[in-house]
């Protein structure tokens, strides 16, 4: 057990946790926007996967990871646009369409990857890291938290930014109203459909970025079905966070640690079957739901299509 507590082990664990947590963080924050506005976005898994595929493809073809992120965001938003069109504007069942979009993206990205790369999985060049002065010199924590690619810091910045939007802007209030009492928002002269549609698009954008991060930085490759439930974990994070972005960050770090424990244990020379390790994050989610389930609060009008004048 002593080997578990060496400095290297803790640094490796934290480093892996950060890398694994960023996609969850972005997906969770994105889902939070949708849920606040009253849309249960089950399609987020598909949006993430599309982001991973598009992000990887453009980063690989152009050699620019930033173009990759732009493509990932666009890919996620494109899937979200279908969701917004069908569920927010046309009022189709959010769960059915969410599943359909996830299935469709899984099939489509696997097909496209096969056509372009056959059985090859080309690897992207390493993404450079940005060492924050002074902070990165802190032992143990420094190398794990403050020697990260620039986009990690940007993702962290999204947490206070979203918090400020939710708390202190008119837009934040409108989002909340769209989820809790859409009729009141409508009466106040704000278009519910526009607010909800915009929220779904924002979710797709964030989830696409999360997927792109996963492919470009987390793995460095694209593999069909690679998001493997990360989008769904994002939904759980948003549910448990009760509308607070910093709670999503906390949850993402905890689940990221669960995901990264495999590599960390290997560093420490302990061999645990990967299938057992893979169960950890999902077991953690269920445990969290058992303990905090009663407190997981969702907006009153979540999943309910808003039709003006309908009772």
């Amino acid at each position, binding site marked *: 057990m002593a080997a578990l507590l060496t400095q290297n082990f803790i640094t490796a664990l934290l480093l892996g946790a950060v890398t694994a947590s960023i996609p969850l963080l972005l997906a969770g924050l994105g889902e939070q926007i949708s849920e606040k506005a009253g849309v*249960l976005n*089950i399609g987020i898994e598909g949006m993430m996967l599309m982001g991973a595929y598009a992000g990887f493809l453009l980063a690989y073809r152009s050699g620019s990871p930033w173009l990759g992120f732009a493509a990932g965001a666009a890919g996620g938003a494109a899937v979200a646009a*279908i969701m917004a069109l*069908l569920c927010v504007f*046309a*009022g*189709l*069942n959010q*769960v*059915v*369409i969410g*599943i*359909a*979009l*996830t*299935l*469709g*993206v*899984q*099939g*489509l990205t*696997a*097909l*496209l990857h*096969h*056509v372009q790369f056959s059985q090859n999985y080309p690897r992207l060049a390493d993404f450079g890291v940005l060492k924050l002065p002074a902070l990165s010199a802190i032992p143990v924590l420094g190398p794990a938290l403050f020697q990260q690619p620039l986009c990690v810091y940007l993702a962290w910045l999204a947490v206070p930014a979203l918090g400020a939007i939710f708390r202190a802007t008119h837009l934040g209030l409108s989002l909340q109203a769209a989820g809790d009492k859409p009729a009141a928002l409508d009466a106040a002269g704000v278009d519910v459909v526009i607010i909800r549609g915009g929220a779904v698009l924002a979710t797709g954008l964030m989830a696409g970025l999360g997927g792109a991060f996963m492919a470009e930085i987390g793995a460095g490759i694209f593999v*069909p079905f690679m998001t493997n*439930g990360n989008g*769904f974990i994002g*939904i*759980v994070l948003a*549910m448990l966070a009760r509308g607070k972005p910093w709670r999503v960050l906390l949850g993402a770090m905890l689940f990221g640690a669960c995901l990264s424990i495999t590599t960390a244990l290997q560093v420490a020379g302990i061999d645990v*079957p990967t*299938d*057992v390790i*893979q*169960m950890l994050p*999902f*077991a953690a*989610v*269920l445990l969290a*739901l*058992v303990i905090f*389930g*009663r407190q*997981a609060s*969702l907006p009153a009008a979540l999943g309910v299509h808003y039709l003006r004048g309908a009772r």
Partner: protein
Amino acid sequence: MSRIVLTAFLPFIAAIILSGLVLWLLGANPVAYYTIVVQRGLFSTGGLQASATHMAAPLLIGASLIVAFRAGIWNLGGDGQFLLAAVVVAAAAPNMAGILPRWAALSLCLALGAAVGAAWSVLPALLKAYQGVNEIITTLMMTFLGVSLANVLVKLVFADPHTTVPQTRTLPVADRLPHVFHTTISSGLLVGVITIILVQLVMARTAFGLKLRMVGASQKAALHAGLPVPRLIFSVFGLSAALAGLAGAVDILGVQGNVRADWNPAYTLTVVPLVFLARLNGFAAIPLMFLFAILSIGGESAARRLGVPNQFTLVVMATLLILLGVSETLDQRRRNGGPG
């Protein structure tokens, strides 16, 4: 009749054409693809019998989903319930086959599969009934957990010591579910068809079914009418998951014979669109599952022959589901807006 054509047939044709377009854009010949699908899945004796056998598990998954969805419970954890039941049955069946007569061993295995499936739904049921936690999330999480647990069981606990391949012991063909008459069709098909018809009758014609549908229509109204809602939610989860587990048992006892590591047919999410296409009606689901079986069996051959990944079936399913939803909504609008 014209409504059925408009809301079910038209989306189906459109989905075939749209997904064909995807194939064409990817450089494969959609006509050749669909021709092979129909030839191999329907018009060859071996293919037809394979399709019929292949229907059993999706039929039972369909029955599982119909029970849940009609009661307003989104049990999306069928894959975990299916796979765990399959693994436990695969491990138990070869042992039982040596001791018990064939009919007793098979019946016990079917019951065992149902029990394992039901057990995997206890936690989501508890959370839904007493904590009000959204069951979509919990059942999906249980599926991810269940799939990994199934792999652990196959590789570490139930692995066949006589092979180096990580898989469970293979059930000898003589001990599997018998064939129907003189065909190669497994009698699992009969289990599937009878079960989905029973489910349809129970949901549509019995007081118990009515109670479940009331819970589905409005939990508040059901509570107000004095129904024991938490207990009914438990029954729905238990029944639905038991049917998914039964599907796993039937697939092992009738088709697979063993479970290889990392095997996961992931039926549930693809069967969801089909039961919606059937409007949650058990009778209507039967021909659709047959169609699905043809598409899977024929699609496998077509994909191999044309060098297209098997995942193309997913694209067809997704397109079908979306178009179906659109046509359903348009249909409802027309009825609400139009005369009468």
